[in-house]
């Protein structure tokens, strides 16, 4: 199909998490919508579903998931939506009256066109380099969680958790329920930071009391099960020769374990927005968040962004933003009067504002501080795809290069992950050197793709 023909769809939604689902649910019937997600089934990170083939008892119990599951069920019953699961979006570019997306479903690459595109690709775990963090058995807390959620199995025997994000309590709790052993949970920050930050935002803390209580409850459950929970003890190294054998903490103590899970926070998925030329700005604790107007329109015509790709903020805010984007698409398509959209948006905006206040509290509590540690030993790997060490980076930084210059000089960010796991660290290191840190130039494809598949495209 050439660029002038009528697009295949009125709207392409990339990502079927809370944001993508809510967008579809907010649209009136009529538009031809395609929803594309790398996962086989919709749900996003928070509701990662077990494969249909084997259903598991006790999958994600708990009150906090009920609303998410109800939304998912409503989304799955939408008839106007064409679902493309197990399909990665490699890139999207402006073409004629809309956007042309390159998709890979593992067997081949094809293109679809859509008049409008919504990027709702969520966030991912922030990698933090430490000595030994590339040993087999060291992973992100989200990685453990995805594993537990998708198959209800525990990798390794004893897992130690460390980091600054409270989500690690949730992950540890889920792991324990799934039959794994939690060796310890270590927070980098002192306990009083939690109290002080909550006291600093008393209203937000109060209105989110049930949430805070449930976190406390998790901690209490873990303690009751004999799991040590440490505060003010950052992890300093993963110990072990061929695989993880222990986790060293700030005070030198080593927690014996078979696997180590880190949780310092999340980075917005920014590869597609950046490759599409959408405006982004720096996010906390790292990465880039896509810019948008009050209706979640991004900086190029026909492009919308919603959910954690615009900043890490939790499932409720993500869903609210998805709904706003859905209403905006309806207005821009001319299938919903603006006045009606404004009316429907009002409660959504209130919900979003509420959720954002909680997200700000969480961000303040979880702030990992400047990472990676500038004084890491020189042989610590920072870019694991290309084995670039802290020492290599220090040498390049001494010349005064920017991110692109360091990439060319050291190969940092040139590997298969395209810098997803090292760009933020490098920019943090550059922070003190360069006045205007620009990130890596975004490159096609957003995910590695077999050349034979790319050529097999119809």
């Amino acid at each position, binding site marked *: 199909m050439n660029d002038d023909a009528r697009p295949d769809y009125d709207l392409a939604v990339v990502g079927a998490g809370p944001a993508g689902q809510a967008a579809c649910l907010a649209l009136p019937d009529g538009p031809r919508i395609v929803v594309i997600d790398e996962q086989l089934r919709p749900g996003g990170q928070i509701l990662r579903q077990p494969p249909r083939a084997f259903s598991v008892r006790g999958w994600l119990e708990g009150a906090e998931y009920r609303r998410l599951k109800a939304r998912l069920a409503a989304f799955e019953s939408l008839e106007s939506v064409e679902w493309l699961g197990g399909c990665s979006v490699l890139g999207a570019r402006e073409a004629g009256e809309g956007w042309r997306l390159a998709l890979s479903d593992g067997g081949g690459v094809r293109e679809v066109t859509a008049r409008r595109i919504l990027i709702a690709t969520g966030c991912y775990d922030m990698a933090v380099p430490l000595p030994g963090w590339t040993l087999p058995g060291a992973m992100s807390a989200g990685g453990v969680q995805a594993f537990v959620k998708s198959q209800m199995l525990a990798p390794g025997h004893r897992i130690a958790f460390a980091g600054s994000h409270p989500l690690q309590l949730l992950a540890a709790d889920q792991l324990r329920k799934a039959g794994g052993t939690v060796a310890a949970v270590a927070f980098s920050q002192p306990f009083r930071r939690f109290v002080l930050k909550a006291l600093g935002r008393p209203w937000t803390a109060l209105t989110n009391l049930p949430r805070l209580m449930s976190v406390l409850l998790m901690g209490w459950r873990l303690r009751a099960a004999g799991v040590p929970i440490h505060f003010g003890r950052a992890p300093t190294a993963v110990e072990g020769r061929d695989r993880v054998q222990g986790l060293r903490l700030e005070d030198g103590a080593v927690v014996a374990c078979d696997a180590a899970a880190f949780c310092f926070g999340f980075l917005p998925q920014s590869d597609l927005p950046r490759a599409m030329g959408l405006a982004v700005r720096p996010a906390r604790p790292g990465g880039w968040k896509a810019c948008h107007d009050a209706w979640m329109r991004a900086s190029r015509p026909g492009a919308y962004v919603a959910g954690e790709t615009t900043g890490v903020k939790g499932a409720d805010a993500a869903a609210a933003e998805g709904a706003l984007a859905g209403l905006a698409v309806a207005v821009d398509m001319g299938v919903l009067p603006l006045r009606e959209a404004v009316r429907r948006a009002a409660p959504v905006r209130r919900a979003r504002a509420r959720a954002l206040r909680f997200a700000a509290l969480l961000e303040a509590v979880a702030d990992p501080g400047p990472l990676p540690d500038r004084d890491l030993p020189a042989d610590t790997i920072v870019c694991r795809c290309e084995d670039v060490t802290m020492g290599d980076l220090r040498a390049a930084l001494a010349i005064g290069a920017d991110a692109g210059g360091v990439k060319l000089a050291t190969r940092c960010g040139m590997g298969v992950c395209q810098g997803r796991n090292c760009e933020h660290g490098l920019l943090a290191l550059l922070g003190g050197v360069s006045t205007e840190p620009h990130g890596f130039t975004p*490159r096609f494809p957003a995910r590695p793709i077999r050349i034979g598949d*790319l050529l097999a495209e119809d």
Partner: protein
Amino acid sequence: MDGVDVLVIGAGLVGCAAACRLAQAGARVEILEAARPNAGASGANAGSLHFQLERRFLENGEALADQAASILGLNLLAIEEWRGLADELGPDIRVHMRGGLMVAETADEVAILERKVAREVQGGLASRMIDGDAARALAPGLSETVVAASHLEAEGHADPKALTLAFAAAAAARGVRLRQRCRVVAARPVRSGYRLTVETPDGPEDLTAPKILIAAGAWSARIGELFNLHLPLYPVALLMSATERTAPLLDPLIQHVGQRLSMKQAQAGNVLIGGGWPSRMRLDAAGRFDLDRPAEMLASSLRGNLAVAARVFPRVAELNLIRSWTGITAITADQLPLVGAIPQAPGVYVAAGGSAFTLGPTFARLLARRILDEPEERLEIFSPARFGHLNSFMGAADA
């Protein structure tokens, strides 16, 4: 800013190498770079060492091919230059000169290749025709569709990013100052030479030197305008792709005589695929080509390029593409490099255009001699004087 003999504009390979050679000869040199070393084509190129006549010289008829063959003398010098570089600059630049094949798949292509080799041999290059099986013996995995190839033992590849930095370091060791984020925005003749105005993060500044070298790659024509000169250099945007790293797979450099293709396995293990497929340059606010923003990749070029690569060397189809990028380089009206003194602006020199990864170190060595007023005839055919008619009404008066 007293005491600088030569101000070099641009810290790509050409600027850094020229500064290094000038300093080695005793000159006091400063490099002015708008962004950082490798910001331009030198940080984006394929790193091929092409010493055979390139396909682009052969695709526009015999007359042009004959004219282009005049580059062979420079290629011979470049082979010698490259043989010395690894020793001089160290292993980081990853020189790999273990042969290059230019393949043919049809009878017509074989005929072009044969004429090409005849020209090359006449010009003193040790290239030779081999049949498909001999080519496959040198590059196991090469497709059965390859019926013949021209082979040159000296060809190969090196690491372009590292080469620029190695020259910059060697220059620094000789006292050359490299100023990053220092963009030349104006030039004016003065009694003692030329005064350049640069924009820096700390504000504008004026710098004066008797001699100026324009080594600004695709930006060189714009720099020429600052001197009231036409430099017939045109920006072109090209595409490159890299696969994931993989075990040793491909030893020689592969090119194609009838298709745009260059393919090699870099020392790190990635297979790099290019060969001159176009990208689309963006336009700036004034509607001119925007040389400061990456060009836009064209899906048709990506497909076309990968398809030729996979046809000629089927095993690349099994590899993952991890990155495609675009880069902007400069070509001249007659495809030959533009290197030498500019007659209408005494004291101003230029070195740009051509496959200046392969040839840049050689330009640098010869041009440094020319700038320091030593006899140097070997650059004559690349001299800007050949476009003198364009500058008949231009130039730098009123010193």
